[in-house]
């Protein structure tokens, strides 16, 4: 019983970490991309 349920506990923690780290990558990636796009628009329009 203990061994069979331990897999569910481990899976729940692994899943939580995967989701949290995935969300971190996605959010920071969105910030980086949006900032680059903004800077490209501003430089493209006003430095040319």
């Amino acid at each position, binding site marked *: *019983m*203990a061994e*069979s*349920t*331990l897999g*569910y*506990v481990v*899976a*729940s*923690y692994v*899943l*939580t970490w995967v*989701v*949290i780290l995935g*969300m*971190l990558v996605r*959010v*920071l990636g*969105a*910030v980086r*991309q*949006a*900032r680059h*796009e*903004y800077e*490209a*628009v*501003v430089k493209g*329009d*006003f430095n040319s």
Partner: protein
Amino acid sequence: MTTDRSTFDPPKAGWWPAFGWVSFAFFAFTQVYAVVTSPADRMMGHMQKMMYVHVPAAWVTFLAFGIVLAASVLFLWKEDERHDLIAASAAEVGSVFCALTLILGMLWGRPTWGVWWSWDARLTSTLVLFLIFVGYLALRSFVEDPQRRGQWSAAVGILGAINVPIVWMSVKWWRTLHQLQSNPRSLDPVYLRGLMLNFLAFTLLMVFFIRRRYEAARYERAAEHASQAAALGGYDG
């Protein structure tokens, strides 16, 4: 709708990256602390440890959708687009945590109830909550006009957030497989400390995610505004 210059100013990261690092370090600590310090429960054995991820994930889901409610009401009242962007950021983060809550619940339900899913009131109302906010995010991607997008999504956001108290009370209002909420009086202190620390860690992470997502949304709007203004020849820096 308010479109003063500050709405389109690029945001500043400020001390938020440092806040993120501290939050992640604290989250890692609370996870290890809770697992290591909590003894096996008399009834559930080590499955009790799933409480430290499932319950805080549900808590931050409710909190994020509460932020959607507050920001949506503020947007409809003051018509400041920044409130709409906060609501959208919170809805995105809340939806991810809601999906996590549902899947963690299934992982807990299978060995406890013998089934992955049951159409009981708590599980079904949580699924409805998740689907409403998936619809919210889909709606935002379909509507291009910022004012109309803000108004429509605010209406859906408020409707969705009203479902939160129904989810919370479902275990009391209807006979369900899901147990009643634990509270500080019903929980042994040895489990309570780990749970409270994880509540705090999940909340800090949620705040960090929403703030950084909001930052990205502000950059996107600033870029749109700059390119539109440049096309009209009226951007003054």
